[in-house]
């Protein structure tokens, strides 16, 4: 009985081991499926996190792009404004450059004219102070039935200083009688002149005419 009982127990153990192998063999597809599921699940999770990471990067990149685009638009506006302003300034610069050149030529012409005239005057004027030059004309005037004599005289200060006074004097004779005509002018400047106009009877003769100055 005893040995029979022991033999029976070994048989049961062998049966149990065979059963597990058999059961594993029976669920081999299930196990394979589970492993595949784990792999596929892992891949799915990987792509899920990858797509989440990518959308985050994409959002950041979109934000960066929009920010850069705003800066670009702002810079474009500033650039275009500056181009317009610079063009206007260039135009103004060219205008004033042309005006400057025209004015420069006018200035040179004017300076040349002034220098020429000034040179002429310097050569003409005496440098020794007051010098009075005289021109005169003694002639018959009036109607034929009542003729008279006229003395026109002009004194010019051709010196380079003002004359305090200039006197034009003439010595006239009439029927053997002589008389002096004179007129005094004060403060006669350089390059200025004074004039006398005297009327006499028709028989009057001009004896001499001269100037005195101080």
């Amino acid at each position, binding site marked *: 009985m005893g040995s029979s009982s022991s033999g029976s127990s070994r048989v049961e153990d062998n049966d149990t081991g065979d059963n597990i192998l058999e059961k594993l063999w*029976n*669920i081999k597809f*299930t196990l394979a*499926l*589970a492993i*595949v*599921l784990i792999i*596929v*699940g892992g*891949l*799915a999770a990987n*792509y*899920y996190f990858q*797509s989440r990471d*990518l*959308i985050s990067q*994409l959002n950041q*990149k979109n934000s*960066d*792009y929009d920010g*850069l685009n705003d*800066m670009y638009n702002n*810079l*474009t506006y*500033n*650039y275009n404004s*500056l*181009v317009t*302003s*610079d063009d206007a*300034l*260039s135009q103004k*610069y060219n205008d*004033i*450059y042309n*005006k*400057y050149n025209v*004015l*420069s030529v006018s*200035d040179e012409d*004017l*300076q040349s*004219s*002034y220098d020429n*005239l*000034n040179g*002429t*005057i310097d*050569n*003409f004027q*005496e440098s020794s102070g007051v*010098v009075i*030059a*005289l*021109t005169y004309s003694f002639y018959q005037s009036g109607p034929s039935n009542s003729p008279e004599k006229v003395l026109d005289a*002009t*004194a*010019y200060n*051709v010196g380079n200083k003002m004359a305090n006074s200039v006197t034009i004097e003439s010595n006239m004779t009439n029927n053997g009688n002589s008389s002096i005509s004179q007129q005094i002018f004060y403060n006669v400047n350089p390059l*200025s002149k004074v004039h006398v106009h005297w009327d006499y009877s028709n028989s009057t003769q001009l004896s001499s005419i001269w100037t005195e100055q101080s």
Partner: protein
Amino acid sequence: MGDVKGNAILGKLRKNIFVIGFAVLAIALIIAASVGVYYYDLSKDRATQLTQKQSDYTALNNTYGALYNSYSALVTSDNDLNERFTNLTNSYDSLSSNVSSSESAYDALNTSVSKFEETGGPAIAVYYRTYNSGTPANPNFTVNITAYNVGDETDSQFTINCKVIFDGTPSVDQQVVDNLAPLDKKSITWVYTPGTIVDTIWVD
């Protein structure tokens, strides 16, 4: 009777537990695969978009950089132009002021000349002076005459005459002058014996 039926159901379940498990795993695998494919496609799509956006960003950044360089160059050029414009404006104002002063001075000088000059042709005015000259052993009497054209035209020809008297005898010296311009002068000197008297000096 009831226990027999229940044991039969449990028995069936126990018999089919692997089939059910297999079915559940299969469905889960399909779902996981679908989800995996969905996120794979989504990742691929987003990666493409990201690459495109990165490319757009790079292109825009290059364009921005080029525009920024142009803008910087234009700012420098504009500042330079602005400085040159300011300098030129100051120079123009200064020149304009000089021209105004020169015009004023020239006009004043011209007005003086215009008032001084006789109009309508040449006009000759004369100044003369006499003085003793020479040496004590050989004294002379000098007459210096200057003729000024105070008219506004050139005198093509005129004669300076000097009538002197020596010992009761008159004589006339003459000097012809050609082409004396306005505001020009001609000077002549005659030397006589002491005792000579100047009678008249005139121009023809």
